């Protein structure tokens, strides 16, 4: 390698934009928000140190915090397994060597691509409203549907449905994973007279576990951070009766509705710890069920 490529000065010159961003937009703010989480701060007057007060209040005296935790965990626990199941099931159907694969793949991927838009959240509000499309369809079968969006029993489920509808991108990742399973393994197994079902459980599924693991971690972290649909569907309130009060929505309300910046910073750090614990747990348990080639 030439002299220039090894000179520390050249290296840091090239790294500079990223380095400024990392220190000024990521590391600095991360540490500063940790500090803010121990303060009371309303943007107008300087932060006042309050010690652990924010955290104590969060865990002991804040019913809305627990409501948002419950909503978020229910959302994650329902939406991620359902989404991944659909993604895997459709990917397996598509991997049977059928005609029209690109068309099907495109159709199933489209909702994933558009799903983050406000437009889709608006559409969902209409579909599951009292006079929405779902009830129109149900009425054809003589069923009188509920007002799904404004009924606290169902409102969160409509958002789960919205998340599951967007199974396209994990499906594409599964499809790519299925393609990588060497054909000779299937050949050997079917030569030995193994049934399709046995081949699936003994070869396909174990060899696919790294991809399942990857999708599981990514989708779970993403689900913890969901915001836009809940905001649009509930008009930013998290209602009815806090039933769609996603964690990030509560954080937003505290920070930009009530200007409790210190408290919101504490909420952000709790979220970071939850995501870090989940990720660590996922990686630690992965060696018991994820099959890695050696």
């Amino acid at each position, binding site marked *: 390698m030439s002299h220039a490529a090894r000179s520390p000065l050249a290296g840091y010159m090239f790294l500079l*934009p*990223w380095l400024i961003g990392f220190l000024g937009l990521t590391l600095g703010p991360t540490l500063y928000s940790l500090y803010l989480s121990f303060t009371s701060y309303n943007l107008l007057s300087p932060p006042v140190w309050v010690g652990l007060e924010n955290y104590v209040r969060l865990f002991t005296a804040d019913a809305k915090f627990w409501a948002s935790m419950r909503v978020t965990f229910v959302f994650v626990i329902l939406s991620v397994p359902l989404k991944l199941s659909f993604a895997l099931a459709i990917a397996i159907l598509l991997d049977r*060597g059928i005609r029209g694969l690109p068309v099907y793949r495109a159709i199933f*991927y489209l909702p994933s691509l558009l799903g983050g838009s*406000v437009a889709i959240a608006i559409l969902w509000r209409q579909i599951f409203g009292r006079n929405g499309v779902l009830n129109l369809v149900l009425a054809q079968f003589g069923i009188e549907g509920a007002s799904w969006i404004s009924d606290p029993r169902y409102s969160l489920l409509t958002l789960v449905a919205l998340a599951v509808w967007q199974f396209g991108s994990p499906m594409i990742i599964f499809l790519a994973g299925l393609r990588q399973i060497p054909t000779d393994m299937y050949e050997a197994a079917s030569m030995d007279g193994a049934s399709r079902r046995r081949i699936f459980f003994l070869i396909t599924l174990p060899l696919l576990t790294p991809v399942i693991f990857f999708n599981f971690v*990514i989708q779970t972290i993403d689900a913890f951070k969901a915001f836009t649909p809940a905001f649009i569907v509930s*008009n930013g309130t998290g209602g009815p009766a806090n039933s769609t009060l996603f964690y990030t929505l509560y954080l937003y309300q505290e920070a930009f509705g009530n200007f409790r910046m210190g408290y919101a910073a504490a909420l952000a750090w709790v979220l970071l710890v939850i995501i870090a614990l989940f990720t660590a747990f996922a990686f630690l348990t992965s060696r018991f069920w994820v099959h890695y080639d050696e």
Partner: protein
Amino acid sequence: MSDQGITPPSWPVRTITHVLLIAASVVMLYPLLWMLSASVRPEAEIFDSGSLWPSAIVWDSFVAGWSGLRVSFGQFFLNSLVIAVISVIGNLMACSLAAFTFTRLDFPGRNFWFAMMLGTLMLPYHVTLIPQYVMFLNTGWVDTILPLVGPKFLAADAFFVFLMVQFFRGIPREIDEAAMMDGCSPWRIYWKIMLPLSLPVLATAAIFTFIWTWEDFFGPLIYLTSIGNYTVQLGLRSFIDASSQSSWGALFAMSVLSLLPLFLIFIIFQRMLVEGIATTGMKR
């Protein structure tokens, strides 16, 4: 194409597979097609029919929606477009430069900084949100596009740095080492050799940056306060507040328009999108 086993599926299996897939396709597309048809059907019909076929095609909803707010949707589209295009430029320049530095230059601390970069991949943006907001408030950048596009020029999207690092690692080192022997400066190697060889990954990064920026709701919600600066997503949100039950048609018309750029990208770059997701494991 890996089929399950060496024998192709028998015709009953094929038929059942197609039936299942077509049924699923109908469920997946129905909401989108319904919205499309709601945007062109007479307003009164929207709440009467779950059918996809409008009795007549009228453009009233588009006309009403376009100027349904104090500021026309044309302005919102322009604002979104400006933010998305500048974001694409920023991400392409800054992320490729960072990726080049991490993969091709040798300097003390490189591995440490690379590990730091990887560490930021999983960091939820909520943790940096409030300090960044305070910072941009103090610099007077709130209600401008600067907090939305500025960070892109500092490679704040670690995901794209990582994506490009992966790609750059696949480019044989012999190519740039030979150039270095000939006395090429690192800058020229980056600009004249690496970037031209990286068009696929640059295109992928550009497309996904555009889509994500176009769809972004949280950033504009926090940083853009006056209606003249709103993006399409914020415009739609205000439209819900402003419109009563009677103008769902206009709301749907503008919603359809807001999805149109994404749909066009989908049609044109479908292959690239699918490959991008399959090879990098993007979440959306």
